[in-house]
């Protein structure tokens, strides 16, 4: 008769330290996450490889509905535009477009991506400081909304307007003091020192282009909804001043993006889920400022929002696998994962929530989580409390949907596949794992370097 063996767990011993307890109690982030929307983490990794990005279509749609509801309950004319730079995997973009989002792009590359996805040219907002001549011409001919960043661009558009039958539809990007530090003043024209008004005058006095909107993007990972209220108030004042001086209604006010997601910034005492404002708080601040600015009911401008991070971050997961455990010289546990800062760029900014993907006992260890790169900066978490992970165990990194799939670096390894779980809980590959050819397919070898003898 054979006896059934017990599940093995690595032996651990931890010194008990007396000290000041965290007033919120002990951390519980090591609760196992074995499934993502009915898909077993282990099976996903077996099928699609590790590491693996997983995106929940349902979470994207739910988040969009929540944001849309928060603004539309408070303001009659609201339009979201999907911020391509936050995540421009086409399947992700199309979920937002299916929900009604326009496209907000910041480069010619992104502009062409939006066109390729089928977004009509007049529903593409073209932001950013680097718009090439041919890209601007394309945008003008497509009736896209061009948000002018600097005077050089304004004068270039003037020149281009003479070459085409289309009247460029433009807005200016306005930077301003909203009471937060640091103040973003490198993009667009300043409100307080009169630059913005100068640019407006130059556009209004030109008979070849139409000023249709005012835009701002006051910061990123903003935790103060009141700053948006100040910005919306200042843009509204500008719009009303334009109406007074030029008898022209501004069609839209674009508040940009920057809403914080539920991630926890490094050095933050409280968890992001407890501190990040809700969509309702941002919506209340923005819409109150516009509604109280003095527009008549018919003159109320369309409110455009380019929210990226807060829309997609929650929908993204990164699944990974333990490569090894080791002990550092000072006795700390170090665990090496098969994903590093090359594909989890946001670990430079956040203490990402990381959960084991299998059941564990009640004992935990404090550890440092390293990535697999041969670089000292490759640290995923400087300190984290996790159960004793073993080689080949899996983990789930939460809230990684924003920026990682656009800012990831191809460094010494191939980038992983991306899978989207649809609303019926079926997993689809939406970007294949890279191959050697993905990287060196565009390389060219000069003839004299083709051969060598060793």
């Amino acid at each position, binding site marked *: 008769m054979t006896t059934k063996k017990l599940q*093995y*767990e690595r032996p651990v*011993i931890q010194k008990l330290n007396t000290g000041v307890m965290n007033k919120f109690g002990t951390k519980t982030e090591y609760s196992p996450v074995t499934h993502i929307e009915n898909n077993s983490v282990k099976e996903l990794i077996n099928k699609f490889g590790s590491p693996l990005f997983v995106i929940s279509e349902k979470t994207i749609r739910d988040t969009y509905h929540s944001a849309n509801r928060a603004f539309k309950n408070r303001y009659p004319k609201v339009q979201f535009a999907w911020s391509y730079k936050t995540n421009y995997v086409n399947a992700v973009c199309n979920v937002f477009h299916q929900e009604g989002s326009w496209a907000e792009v910041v480069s010619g590359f992104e502009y062409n991506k939006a066109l390729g996805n089928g977004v009509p040219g007049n529903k593409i907002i073209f932001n950013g400081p680097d718009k090439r001549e041919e890209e601007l011409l394309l945008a003008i001919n497509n009736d896209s909304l061009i948000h002018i960043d600097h005077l050089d661009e304004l004068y270039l558009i003037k020149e281009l307007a003479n070459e085409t039958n289309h009247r460029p539809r433009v807005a200016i990007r306005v930077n301003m003091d909203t009471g937060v530090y640091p103040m973003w003043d490198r993009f667009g024209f300043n409100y307080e020192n009169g630059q913005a008004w100068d640019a407006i005058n130059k556009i209004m006095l030109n008979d070849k282009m139409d000023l249709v909107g005012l835009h701002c993007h006051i910061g990123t990972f903003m935790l103060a909804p009141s700053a948006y209220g100040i910005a919306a108030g200042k843009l509204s004042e500008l719009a009303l001043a334009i109406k007074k001086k030029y008898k022209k209604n501004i069609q839209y006010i674009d508040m940009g993006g920057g809403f914080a997601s539920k991630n926890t910034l490094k050095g933050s005492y409280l968890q992001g889920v407890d501190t990040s404002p809700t969509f309702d708080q941002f919506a209340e601040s923005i819409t109150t400022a516009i509604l109280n600015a003095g527009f008549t009911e018919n003159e109320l401008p369309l409110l455009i929002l380019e929210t990226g991070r807060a829309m997609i971050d929650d929908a993204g997961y990164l699944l990974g696998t333990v490569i090894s455990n080791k002990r550092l010289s000072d006795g700390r546990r170090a665990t090496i994962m098969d994903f590093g800062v090359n594909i989890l760029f946001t670990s430079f900014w956040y203490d990402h929530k990381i959960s084991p993907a299998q059941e564990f*006992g009640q004992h935990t260890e404090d550890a440092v989580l390293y990535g697999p790169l041969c670089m000292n900066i490759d640290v995923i978490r400087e300190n984290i409390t996790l159960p004793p992970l073993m*080689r080949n165990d899996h983990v789930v990194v939460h809230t990684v949907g924003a920026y990682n799939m656009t800012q990831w670096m191809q460094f010494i390894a191939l980038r992983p596949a991306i899978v989207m779980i649809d609303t019926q809980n079926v997993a689809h590959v939406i970007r294949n794992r890279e191959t050697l050819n993905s990287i060196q397919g565009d390389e060219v070898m000069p003839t004299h370097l083709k051969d060598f003898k060793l």
Partner: protein
Amino acid sequence: MKIKKNIALSDSGFVFDPATGDSFTTNLIGMEIIKMLKDGKSHQEIKTAVLKKYLTDEATFEKDNYDFINMLTKHRLTDGDEKEKD
């Protein structure tokens, strides 16, 4: 490798060193290894017992036990002068 004789170990995994006042917590398998060390069991005997009871392989246990013993030593719970009995 021997555990200090005066180390107290509770059934719930609480470890107390009366000489320093330090206290520790260990998991079930850690507790069993400490008990076996207190009973004077050799490394080989401990390995055999663990492999018989738990779903693991020899290499995994060797790595983990090496780390565990190092941590016991780092926490000054072992008699450093005594040689390991094999």
